[in-house]
């Protein structure tokens, strides 16, 4: 497997600019002769599709939702980072770069991260010009707030719905192009496979979710921006439709999958309430700016209402353990700290399976300091959402929160140009693995999605297309397209024909139980080995006993779910293998065998690399390759937020 990262030579600060200057261009008159397929319409996908169309390429964009505006980027609440230093608190591109590298526990590529920090400022300019209603100060200039893992205020926000506002911005740019006829938008279309011709990505096969029609599409390049795989845990903060199918199908066609074990557990979610729960709801990390996290010091107090526990009997464990970052400690650290206190039996809230899985996030001090109207202005919609779901008012009593799967740092392997090891297959946003290492800092996902879509892919894809001869695009009547279409049709027919006894959701739940328990917040060798075996058995059972109702020629939500669960099953095995083979703790990957009294213990000598998995065929285990991470300017150190 060719894993050349193609990091440009030269000093870190100049790499991107030098590289951009050397990238090849395509003559404006020739651009319309190239067809670019973009799969996914979240921040990365919408931004890329709009940008390609503005440049003059012929673009087709696909999404499974009924409108590109609904992609799950929309759910990001807290904000987007940018090294603008508007607050005059010492921020800079270098500082954002350092925070991100450190936040990622030194498992991200330096050059990619530096570029991300560099273009972060352009993103804010672009979004403001598009009309994104960021929060303002009375002088009319942009406001900022602080976020986990940073000691500066560099997060731009639009109430608690920054993701929605940014996505509407990108969607409006995309919509403009659709209106102009330069982008053909295919909604309710799910990518079910990738087509390779002579080893290069030349198209995709989709299923029209309304009519059931399986169709193929030929292009000169394929850009996949289909998000992460958090739903492998069944319960996560992801949308119900979020899936690994597009990236996993590409993986099956030869694309390397990097670091699948890097999954982020978000500390501030609403705790699980019952068996039939389908979804965990995130409360923005921004809440940690004003909320204080605590549990009772004594187990005996855990069943009491919060108000009856006196101040001196409360353990503000984040402030105690990490005095300099306090409640704003990075996500992985805050999550683990919460798990620890709950494991000690000091959790609060409803008893589920003999355990109280929850900690308090308390706003009483902030309400006293700032007044309820100010808190309402800052977090009103989050408090309302919390009350809707739990029936409790966070103005009157502390919120209860618990960590939940939220984001996945792993993804398809890409080089510096965001091109996978399959030529012509580019990957942007959460779907790739490039920028966050083993842990992502808050407000950085939106930054990366838009950076890839607006400011990286348009340059690097153009460079690739400059090397593709005009008119070389294959016809979709080519045998390669026919073969892949047949594969897809066969698979759909197979799923519909098994007619077993268990619903796809039952398998999804079973899958989630295994992955969350054995590959969740804490992992160990025994558990992971078991998980691999259990998942293999579950996969075999699935293909024998799944029952998929509905028909192939109409809207069939169960068929959609079954296909996604089938891919999650294969993927889950790979994720557990990756976690098993990475015998260290880093960021979101915490192996209980490798720790320093609760803190992650990295092994830089053995594991300062990205693990890249290669598909070996159905029923086979994938093979692990590595891309060494070379740090030119960063001193690897133990990550400390104390």
């Amino acid at each position, binding site marked *: 497997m060719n894993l050349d990262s193609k990091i440009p030579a030269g000093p870190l600060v100049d790499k991107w600019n030098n590289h951009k200057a050397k990238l090849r261009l395509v003559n404006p008159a020739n651009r319309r002769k190239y067809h670019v397929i973009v799969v996914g319409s979240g921040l990365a996908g919408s931004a890329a599709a709009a940008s390609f169309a503005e440049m003059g390429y012929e673009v087709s964009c696909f999404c499974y939702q009924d409108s590109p505006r609904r992609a799950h980027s929309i759910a990001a609440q807290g904000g987007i980072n940018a090294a603008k230093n508007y607050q005059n608190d010492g921020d800079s591109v270098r500082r954002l770069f350092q925070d991100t590298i450190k936040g990622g526990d030194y498992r991200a590529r330096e050059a990619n991260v530096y570029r991300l920090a560099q273009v972060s400022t352009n993103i804010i300019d*672009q979004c403001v010009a598009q009309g994104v209603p960021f929060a303002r100060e009375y002088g009319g200039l942009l406001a900022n707030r602080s976020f986990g893992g940073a000691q500066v205020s560099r997060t731009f926000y639009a109430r608690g719905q920054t993701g929605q506002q940014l996505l509407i911005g990108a969607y409006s740019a995309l919509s403009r192009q659709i209106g102009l006829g330069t982008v053909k938008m295919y909604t309710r279309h799910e990518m079910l496979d990738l087509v390779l011709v002579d080893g290069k990505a030349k198209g995709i096969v989709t299923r029209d979710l309304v009519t059931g029609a399986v169709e193929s599409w030929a292009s000169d390049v394929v850009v996949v921006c289909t998000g992460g795989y958090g739903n492998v845990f069944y319960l996560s903060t992801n949308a*119900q439709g979020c899936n690994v199918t597009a990236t996993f199908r590409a993986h099956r066609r030869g694309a390397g999958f990097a670091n699948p074990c890097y999954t982020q557990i978000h500390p501030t979610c609403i705790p699980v309430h019952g068996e039939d729960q389908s979804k965990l709801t995130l409360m923005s990390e921004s809440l940690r700016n004003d909320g204080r996290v605590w549990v009772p010091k004594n187990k005996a107090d855990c069943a009491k*209402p919060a108000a009856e526990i006196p101040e001196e009997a409360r353990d503000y464990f984040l402030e105690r353990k990490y005095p300099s970052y306090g409640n704003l400690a990075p996500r992985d650290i805050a999550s683990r700290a919460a798990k620890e206190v709950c494991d000690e039996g000091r959790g609060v809230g409803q008893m589920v399976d003999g355990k109280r899985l929850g900690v308090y996030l308390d706003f009483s001090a902030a309400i006293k300091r700032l007044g309820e109207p100010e808190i309402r202005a800052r977090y009103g919609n989050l408090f309302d959402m919390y009350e809707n779901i739990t029936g409790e008012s966070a103005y009157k009593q502390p919120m209860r929160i618990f960590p939940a799967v939220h984001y996945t740092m792993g993804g398809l392997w890409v080089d510096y140009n965001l091109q996978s090891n399959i030529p012509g297959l580019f990957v942007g946003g959460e779907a790739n693995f490039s920028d966050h290492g083993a842990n992502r800092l808050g407000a950085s996902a939106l930054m990366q999605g838009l950076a890839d879509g607006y400011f990286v892919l348009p340059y690097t894809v153009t460079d690739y297309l400059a090397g593709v001869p005009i008119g070389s695009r294959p016809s979709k009547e080519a045998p390669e397209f026919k073969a892949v279409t047949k594969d897809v049709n066969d698979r759909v027919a197979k799923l519909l024909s098994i007619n077993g006894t268990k619903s796809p959701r039952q398998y999804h739940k079973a899958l989630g139980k295994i992955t969350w328990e054995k590959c969740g917040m804490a992992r160990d060798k025994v558990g992971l080995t078991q998980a691999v075996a259990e998942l293999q058995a579950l996969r075999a059972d699935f293909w024998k006993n799944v*029952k998929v109702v509905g028909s192939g020629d109409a809207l069939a939500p169960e068929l959609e779910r079954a296909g996604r669960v089938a891919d999650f099953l294969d993927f889950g095995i790979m994720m557990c293998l990756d976690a098993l083979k990475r015998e260290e703790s880093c960021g979101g990957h915490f192996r209980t065998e490798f720790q320093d009294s609760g803190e992650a213990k990295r092994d830089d000598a053995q594991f300062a690399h990205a693990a890249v998995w290669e598909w070996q065929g159905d029923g086979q285990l994938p093979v692990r390759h590595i891309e060494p991470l070379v740090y030119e300017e960063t001193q690897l150190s133990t990550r400390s937020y104390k």
Partner: protein
Amino acid sequence: MVQENEKEVTLALKLRVWRQRRCQPGAFEEHALAAVPTSASFLEMMDMLNEQLIKAGKDTFAFDHDCREGICGMCSMTINGMPHGPLPGVTTCQLHMRNFRDGETITVEPWRARAFPVLKDMIVDRSGFDKVIQSGGFITVRTGSAPEANNIPVPKPVADEAMDAAECIGCGACVASCKNGSAMLFVGAKINHLNILPQGQAERDRRTLAMVKTMDEAGFGNCTNYGECQAHCPKSITLDVIAKLNRDYLRARVKEFFSSTGKPSKGGD
């Protein structure tokens, strides 16, 4: 507040749920659920119904849903005659079963409006909304051409007002609740968000005229000021956006009438 090993409160429910295939007439089907936890969301209740149907070997009910946290705007059910159900200010996915009574009969049907044809069961085609945006719901700014962000000061009250309008999640409850099937609240929210901001001024008139024209062509009805849309909007967007849309539309029409070319001032392409 703290419930220790408390047995979950459950409801027995009768459901009348709409069943329809594309381009065919539909009808209600009756089903019963024995024990729905009050902590479940409405969509989780629908999941339970679907799992029950699968066990019986029957086709499930199709409904749109995605984020299940009230922001993507995908979920769309008319519950007991009310888009998004009986609780004001929330989406279907944020409606929890504690808002229903034991033994209650719940009627579940799709958004009802000519502009939203049914694709299957509770799933409707809302592409009319996208077409409205495509005709003008944007500020023309090419990637990379934006000026430094703080060059455009936006007074806080203006930014807040734009944000109030921008909260619209495009779910279509306004159309579904309107007795005229009108999309004025959606279009008003979208137009207001951009027309209020300094960045949006260049294309203001053009945007307003184009979006209203597309809205009319998409088969939505007309506003007669019932106010149902505001009462059913999960983001509580107010009729103000319609008043301001009307004002901007009048303004643009008058300017168009008196302009030398008979066309609104052009922005962008």
